[in-house]
């Protein structure tokens, strides 16, 4: 038997020091590989006249301890997160619903394809598996309404179109998200930072239950990942404007004048294109133009006011641009046809959604990718107005895994995923922080400036519970006017008459009042006592 080796004291101390050094090196390496996210400590000093000791808890997660000795100086310490915080900085347990499986319904839009690709990361973070059901838009429309109405809770996370959000909220087809936002176990408010979203995006999901008013009150849905649209903005061909020495039009009158010149000097190209068909979101175009002319579709009490001179003038301009300077058969152009027409190099001006900037400047998809410029909507006599559009996300009230659904919504709409979605070119983020990032500004170029400028005067679509009906009535008549079946004025008057009937049928003029006032964050016009349908 061999004797055990003796370790002398010196060697023992050296070994100990060695181990400590190794641990220190390891820790340093770990820190170097996982740099702590920049946190900042802000110390503020205020003067308080009292002399007692005060401890307050601020609604945001940070705790402010205010020690007031006999002197009057208060020291406040607040932790500030970076603009795009990582998931590990959220003070919630991401694994609280591990092992569940949730389902998500939406369209085949690029933003959803991107979320689908990234869902493995979510699964890794939370242990929740997500099943995606991505459908063609028309199929999605029909299916979501049928499922919501049946109350089957087939999908845990539902996504809602801008014009349908009021219907879903009012009918209680969504589980209100404010419940989750206010629950500290499910949402770290400071990390999630809901105030980072554009106010217009949040308005679509806001509803005041006490007055049945939309656009204000508690948050019932969350703006969907990468689903921000300014509709319309103006795209133009830089090469043609340069060739014909035409200044970029700033008003609709200037736009018409420019179209006139193009038609005379370059008859082989169509001066202007936008949506003109029935449905397909066509109403966005005349609606924004009516705003630019100082009008609106409804007054404050939900009475249609398309028969007012400013609305008629705006629709006349829209119809003239499409009829006299648009493509043949302009009355059948939906967003796809109009976009394809412009991207094939057949039109000079294109008035449509900011969502298409990525596609139009992609050389694999657009023949004129390097010849496209973008600017704000032209102004009318009363300035500029454009529509702020965003989809909503919420858990289904009848779904089994609503908490897990919320965690997915929070993850998908976090600053990080919003940023990554936009950086990948898969959608436009509804968060301000994303737009401030250098990578995004470089990738999305002038569109960022247009977005920032448009946001100042953007209005949300009328949060009317019969959005589909209103849209169909208005676009049917504007489409007929573009087709030459009636004048723009007649289209306005007939739309107004039919809208009044539809709104009456839906109970908008019932007493006692069934719905709150019309609020869209823009130019709401007071109800006039001499109003006529």
């Amino acid at each position: 038997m061999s004797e055990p080796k003796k370790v002398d004291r010196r060697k023992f101390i050296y070994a100990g020091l060695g181990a400590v050094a190794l641990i220190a090196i390891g820790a340093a390496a770990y820190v170097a590989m996982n740099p702590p996210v920049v946190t900042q400590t802000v110390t503020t000093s205020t003067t308080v006249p009292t002399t007692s000791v005060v401890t307050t808890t601020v609604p945001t997660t940070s705790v402010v301890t205010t020690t007031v000795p006999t002197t009057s100086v208060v020291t406040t310490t607040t932790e500030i997160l970076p603009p795009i915080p990582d998931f590990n900085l959220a003070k919630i347990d991401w694994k609280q619903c591990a092992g569940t499986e949730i389902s998500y319904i939406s369209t085949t839009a690029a933003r959803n394809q991107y979320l689908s690709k990234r869902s493995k990361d979510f699964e890794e973070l939370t242990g929740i598996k997500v099943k995606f059901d991505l459908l063609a838009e028309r199929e999605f429309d029909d299916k979501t309404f049928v499922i919501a109405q049946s109350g089957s809770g087939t999908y845990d996370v539902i996504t809602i179109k801008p014009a349908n959000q009021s219907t879903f909220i009012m009918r209680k087809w969504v589980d209100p998200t404010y419940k989750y936002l206010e629950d500290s176990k499910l949402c770290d408010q400071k990390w999630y930072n809901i105030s980072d979203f554009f106010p217009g995006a949040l308005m679509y999901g806001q509803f005041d239950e006490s007055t049945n008013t939309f656009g204000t009150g508690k948050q019932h849905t969350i703006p969907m990942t990468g689903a921000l649209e300014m509709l319309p903005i103006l795209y133009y061909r830089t090469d043609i404007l340069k060739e014909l020495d035409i200044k970029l039009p700033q008003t609709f009158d200037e736009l018409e004048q420019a179209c006139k010149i193009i038609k005379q000097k370059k008859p082989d190209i169509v001066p202007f294109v936008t949506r003109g068909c029935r449905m397909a979101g066509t109403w966005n175009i005349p609606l924004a133009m009516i705003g630019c002319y100082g009008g609106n579709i409804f007054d404050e009490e939900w009475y249609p006011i398309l028969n007012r001179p400013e609305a008629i003038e705006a629709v006349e301009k829209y119809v003239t641009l499409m009829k006299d300077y648009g493509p043949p058969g302009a009355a059948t152009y939906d967003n796809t046809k109009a976009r394809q027409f412009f991207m094939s190099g057949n039109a000079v001006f294109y008035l449509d959604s900011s969502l298409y900037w990525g596609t139009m400047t992609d050389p694999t998809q657009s023949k004129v990718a390097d010849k496209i410029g973008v600017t704000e909507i032209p102004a009318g006599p009363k300035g500029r107005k454009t529509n702020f559009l965003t989809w909503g996300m919420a858990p289904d009230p009848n779904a089994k895994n609503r908490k897990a659904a919320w965690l997915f919504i929070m993850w998908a709409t976090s600053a990080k995923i919003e940023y990554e979605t936009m950086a990948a070119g898969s959608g436009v983020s509804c968060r301000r922080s994303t737009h401030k990032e250098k990578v995004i500004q470089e990738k999305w170029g002038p569109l960022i400036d247009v977005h920032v400028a448009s946001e100042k005067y953007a209005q949300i679509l009328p949060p009317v519970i019969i959005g589909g009906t209103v849209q169909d009535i208005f676009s049917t008549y504007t489409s007929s006017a573009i087709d030459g079946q009636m004048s723009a004025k007649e289209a306005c008057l007939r739309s107004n008459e039919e809208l009044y009937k539809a709104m009456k049928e839906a109970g908008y003029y019932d007493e006692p009042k069934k719905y709150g006032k019309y609020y869209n964050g823009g130019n709401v016009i007071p109800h006039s006592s001499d109003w006529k349908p």
Partner: protein
Amino acid sequence: MNWKRFLNRYSFIFYLLPSSLLLFFMLIYPIFWNFYISLHKYIVGDNPTFIGLTNYYDIFLGTLSKNFWYSVYITIILTILTVILQLAIGIGTALLIHDKTQSKIIRSVLLLPMIVAPVVNGVIWGYFIYHPSFGVLNYVLSLFGLEPHLWTYSAQEALPSVIAILVWQWTPFVILLFSSGLEALPKAPVEAAIVDGASSWQILFYIKLPLLKSLILSILVLRITDTLRAFDIIMATTLGGPGRATEILNIMAYKTAFVHLNMGVGCTLGTILFFISLISTILMLYVIKVE
């Protein structure tokens, strides 16, 4: 208890039950449910309120009558023109080439328009054939120095253009059925007529067509009921527009139910359309029986 005898006697029930249940839940029950909903004011999300025949009154005489009668007019025009053209071209072509329709290649070619999905058909016609700027049709017209047209892109030409698609798609069906009928004709009367010195036209009008009358009526019934239900091609090409130029009853019912979310009126339109199809079918079957 003689189970064997009982089973022998009533076993047909078990054989019929699966298909009967399927038929009941997929066809009979929705018809009655549709009628039941049509008696209610029912906007999706609200609770249905019983209003009797108010929806029917609104549609026939009230607030919706203008749009409804316009859709009825469009539906009738579309059905009559489509069916007449399909039968005339189908029968004419079958008479010309019926001996060749037994060829597998010809049959495959004739089946092609029918097997292409209607939505694909709509996109092909809408984008590649009818498009005023890039469409093949205007290009062909320009070769002959003719003016370009707007086809499905204008209210005046949309309906005839949609009819042309329906004729193109379903005329081969008429050709195939009629050719089979011609093949099955007894040869003796035709041979006797030839011996008697009858001309080809006389043989056609006095022998062949009278013998094929019931087949023609059957094809007519099939085409009328099918055309009344035309929906997919219109949705894929014009969406019922421009304006309301191609809004047949089916499109109106769909828009009312799924766009306006007014299920009460949507179901009323569905019920009306059901009765129109039913009455036209009964009439046709009666005529066939009489013949």
